[in-house]
């Protein structure tokens, strides 16, 4: 059988590992497509042939559920936000160092990590009302801006750290509300045994190990 999974871009590297593990285990095929959460939502509403949706937030899956398009919804990972920088920074000094510098983060309106970053900035004592950070489309772009030398700081997902390899990382655990990434088994996949199998695999310990290794926390 075959399952088509739509993945929020920030989870793509992890999803690729999961798909590999699932395929070796079952002989079934996994087709991965990715995009922003909002875009995938619009596509599903328009009849996209996706079986499972791994979103970057809990709002879109809830909205899909409200429209009766889902068979099951549950969290599959909790996002971890970190602050990357060129010079070492501590939680105490962060407010002073970061204010006025170039800080990249995903647009809070569009991306859950952006919303979390805003909360973290307040937690670090920055005045988000007056301070103007660089808002980009998603955490991947925030990382790119940092990596290309165009920002001194960036709020990014921990899942990107391996590829980003920044000089300094500040863990921000506890400074932002939980970033719940919900997955949903879509109603159109109710007949698809492979989809059901992957949905089950996503909750397995093997999957949990991969997700954790990819820089996410695990939901309860």
């Amino acid at each position: 059988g075959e399952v088509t999974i739509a993945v929020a871009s920030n989870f793509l590297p992890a999803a690729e590992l999961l798909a590999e593990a699932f395929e070796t285990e079952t002989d079934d095929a996994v087709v991965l497509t990715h995009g922003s959460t909002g875009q995938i939502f619009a596509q599903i509403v328009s009849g996209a042939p996706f079986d499972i949706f791994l979103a970057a937030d809990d709002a879109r899956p809830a909205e899909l559920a409200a429209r009766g398009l889902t068979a099951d919804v549950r969290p599959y990972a909790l996002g971890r936000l970190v602050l990357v920088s060129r010079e070492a920074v501590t939680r105490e000094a962060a407010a002073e160092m970061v204010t006025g510098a170039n800080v990249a983060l995903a647009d809070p309106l569009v991306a859950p990590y952006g919303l979390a970053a805003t909360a973290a900035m307040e937690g670090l004592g920055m005045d988000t009302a007056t301070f103007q950070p660089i808002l980009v489309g998603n955490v991947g772009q925030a990382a790119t801006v940092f990596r290309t030398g165009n920002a001194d700081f960036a709020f990014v997902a921990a899942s990107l750290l391996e590829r980003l390899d920044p000089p300094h990382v500040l863990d921000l655990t506890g400074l932002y509300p939980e970033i719940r990434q919900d997955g949903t088994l879509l109603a159109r996949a109710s007949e698809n045994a492979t989809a059901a199998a992957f949905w089950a695999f996503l909750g397995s310990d093997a999957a949990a190990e991969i997700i954790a290794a990819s820089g996410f926390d695990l939901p309860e």
Partner: protein
Amino acid sequence: MSLWPVISLTLQLAAITTIILMAFAIPFAWWLARTRARIRPLLEAVTSLPLVLPPTVLGFYLLILMSPDSPLGALWLSATGETLTFSFTGLVIASLFYSLPFAVQPLQTAFMAVPQTTIDTARTLGATSRDAFFSITMPLARRGFLTAAVLTFAHTIGEFGVILMVGGNIPGRTRVISIEIFTAVETLDYATAHVLSAGLLVFSFLVLTVVYALNRNGGTRIG
């Protein structure tokens, strides 16, 4: 990761889009170039409109327009058993929309520069209006054809916002090379992004150079 399906799909999409769009744009631009109808400026304006919407937004509306709930999408579904969105056909339709201005406008400019008197001369020599179009107007306007085809082809290769929205990035079906490069950048896989971009640039550069060099010896009369 085998890139071949992605490259092949990209080239197919660009080629088919260019062919269909030229087939439509040629008569349309010709008509626009010759008509004295009042409606002309309106149609010219409409032709340029696909440009002003951001690709993702254009994709969003096309998604709505072609979804199985829409009349068009429903018709397609009942006729073919497949949805129009997330299919190659859907991509082609979307590409036709967003590349329309690049095909029509250079053609119209070129057609307007072909003197009616030359066409009249061909008519008196036994050419039907259709024959005169192919034997006189087209060769004289060939710089416009070249520009239209190059802009359409290249833009179809480079566009990804619409494609991503309408096509859904499905390997072998709707995943094209621009999305592949986009993904590489978004996931910080810069090495892949560099390689793919460089390949695309070098390939495009070679093709375009050959095309322009071939066109060179002709060129509209300048003396």
